[in-house]
């Protein structure tokens, strides 16, 4: 199982099709796991664990934008925070520019944070309500001794201008701004320390649709101007589509599909990805289409289903007893396109092994119309 998971990422030289920039990856994580213990009773006895992130491996190249998509509760936000060690991972490795992030002492970790920043989902709660915008943006500068005094003030003004805000807003408090403006403040704050990697944790999902595009455009402009690398977390594929070079889909703490954005939208392999894509709104209101409706709720990550974690809700016609037993490896289905499903050919799990596990149906390629007719951008 571990081999299967590691296989795609360990595969040398990510192809151009997967959209990975050349050279060493800026961020590389492997087998990252975060379990949240569940405590019960008077003495806090550990009664189990929520597997929020369960053995995730991936790499992000310099200048790349990796989208991470999944329903809420799939562990994507936890993954983003674990990478920055805002939450301490349970196990696994994180390498940033060759540095073993998990081995750093707190002081070195704080120094490294200059190079990796995060933008949060909620622009209302992520800004300290008792600090002025200027102080919020400035704090990073002074903490990392990048600028002080008048120079820092100038930098703050520049940054505000850069994100499309008037410099004199520096003396105001966050509550005086709209959601979109606040997210710009959040971006300015993150940019202040001149990071290389920014984890964008659903940066637009709390915003009005009308301003979402503006913020996405801003992020793209900044990436182009500064050569930033983004880990872009979102719960719906349509947002990621505009910005991501590669997309990975998460379900119950695991990556279930990972490919270039174009591949994922053109030919989603994993039935879960297919369902997500069918839910993306169609830009043309006249065009009607079928939606793949998933039955049941997302299972509890404290007690994930056996075998393929998606099997209880899976609409794949070849789904059978083997899906409840065999943990599907994340395997290459096409060049640079990995997915975890033993019923989508090709698969490294041979038929006899599936039969031993109770399989009754041969793997067969399944790509419902609903998943691809949503109008991939030309």
């Amino acid at each position: 199982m571990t081999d299967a998971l590691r296989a795609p990422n360990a595969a040398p030289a990510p192809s151009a099709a997967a959209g990975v920039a050349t050279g060493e990856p800026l961020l590389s994580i492997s087998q990252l796991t975060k379990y949240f213990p569940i405590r019960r009773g008077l003495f806090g006895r550990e009664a189990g664990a929520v597997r929020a992130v369960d053995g995730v491996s991936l790499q992000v190249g310099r200048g790349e934008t990796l989208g991470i998509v999944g329903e809420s509760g799939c562990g994507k936000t936890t993954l983003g925070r674990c990478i920055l060690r805002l939450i301490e991972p349970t196990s696994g490795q994180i390498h940033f520019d060759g540095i073993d992030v998990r081995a750093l002492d707190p002081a070195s970790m704080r120094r490294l944070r200059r190079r990796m920043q995060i933008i949060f989902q909620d622009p209302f709660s992520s800004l300290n309500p008792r600090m002025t915008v200027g102080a919020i943006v400035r704090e990073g500068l002074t903490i990392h001794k990048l600028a002080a005094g008048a120079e820092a003030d100038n930098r703050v003004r520049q940054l505000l201008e850069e994100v499309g805000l008037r410099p004199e807003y520096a003396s105001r408090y966050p509550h005086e701004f709209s959601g979109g403006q606040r997210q710009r403040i959040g971006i300015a704050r993150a940019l202040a320390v001149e990071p290389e990697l920014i984890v964008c944790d659903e940066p637009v999902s709390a915003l009005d649709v009308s301003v979402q595009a503006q913020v996405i455009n801003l992020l793209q402009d900044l990436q182009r101007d500064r050569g930033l690398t983004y880990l872009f977390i979102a719960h719906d594929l349509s947002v990621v589509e505009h910005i991501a070079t590669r997309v990975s889909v998460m379900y119950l703490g695991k990556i279930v599909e990972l490919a270039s954005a174009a591949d994922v939208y053109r030919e989603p392999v994993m039935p879960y990805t297919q369902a997500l894509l069918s839910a993306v709104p169609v830009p043309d209101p006249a065009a009607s289409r079928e939606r793949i409706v998933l039955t049941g709720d997302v299972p509890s990550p404290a007690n994930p289903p056996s075998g393929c974690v998606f099997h209880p809700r899976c609409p794949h016609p070849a789904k059978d007893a083997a899906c409840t037993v065999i943990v599907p490896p994340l395997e290459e289905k096409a060049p640079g396109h990995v997915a975890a499903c033993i019923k989508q050919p090709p698969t490294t799990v041979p038929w006899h092994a599936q039969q031993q596990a109770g399989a009754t149906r041969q793997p067969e390629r399944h790509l419902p119309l609903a998943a691809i007719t949503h109008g991939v951008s030309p």
Partner: protein
Amino acid sequence: MRRFLARRLAHGAAVIFIAASLSFLLVHLAPGDPFSSTLDSAAISPSVKAAWRAAYGLDRPLLEQYLRFLGQLARGDLGPSLLQPGPASAALAGAVPNTLVLMGTALILSFVIGIGVGSWQAARAGSGGDRVAGNASLVVASLPEFWLGAVLLLVFALRFRVFPAGGVVDLVMHDSLSPAGRVLDRLRHLALPSLTLALLGSASIARYQRAALLDVLPQDFIRTARAKGVSDRLVLWRHALRNALVPTIVLLGLSLPTLLGGAVFVEQVFSWPGLGRLAAAAFHARDYQVVIGATIMGAVLVVAGGILADLLHAAVDPRVRAQ
């Protein structure tokens, strides 16, 4: 802000006026008068007492006395004390500073202790230390003032003799000490009474502070700060505490009435010549004007506490300031 303040002040003045009127009515309706207040005074004949009442204007109809009292009050005068020479305000002026010093010190101590302990607990919420501190503060908060005062007295004044048992200054030595020695002398006498009040106050403040911090710590802006690379201690002090202080700071103003109530008992235990002792003695002796004056001082403290709470709230919360 100015209009808000003006409105609060007007409101406060009304509260004080009502408190003064009520206390006027109550002391005059209470049985006895300044000349019947001790067990032996039956030896003085009723005609003499009547002459005294007339001399002090107490024989007039209550309404007339009330109007006269209001007239004096409008000029900022409480009228003469009935039991000692000079105006009642002079008696209060001697006692109020002592109470303010006691309450002020207790207030500062209780917030330092309370915020310290509460923050310490919140930083390690759920740990053994947190539970021990939580239970301890619950126990302390439910202790009566005079009991805690008596315990501190027994331990620190009687058993270890590190602090004096009562009074504001050393009755003999104080005046012959150096200026620094006098300050130290005052602090030594202040220690036990202010600590008694402070411990009681800090227990509830610690609980407030812990809860407020636990509300703040999981918020995104704390994560933002950590993501910036701010150290954990700075995150706690600069980001979390400043936000978590709002409910606690508001408590600062609102705790004045409780503190004053506690001071009344503590002043008795530690022979502290403050407002509480004065009011108790004045009520016992039916020194009307001093009782009313003490009530007014109490009302002023309560009103000032409310206004202070609002001002502090505005000072620490920019969202309120804007309104």
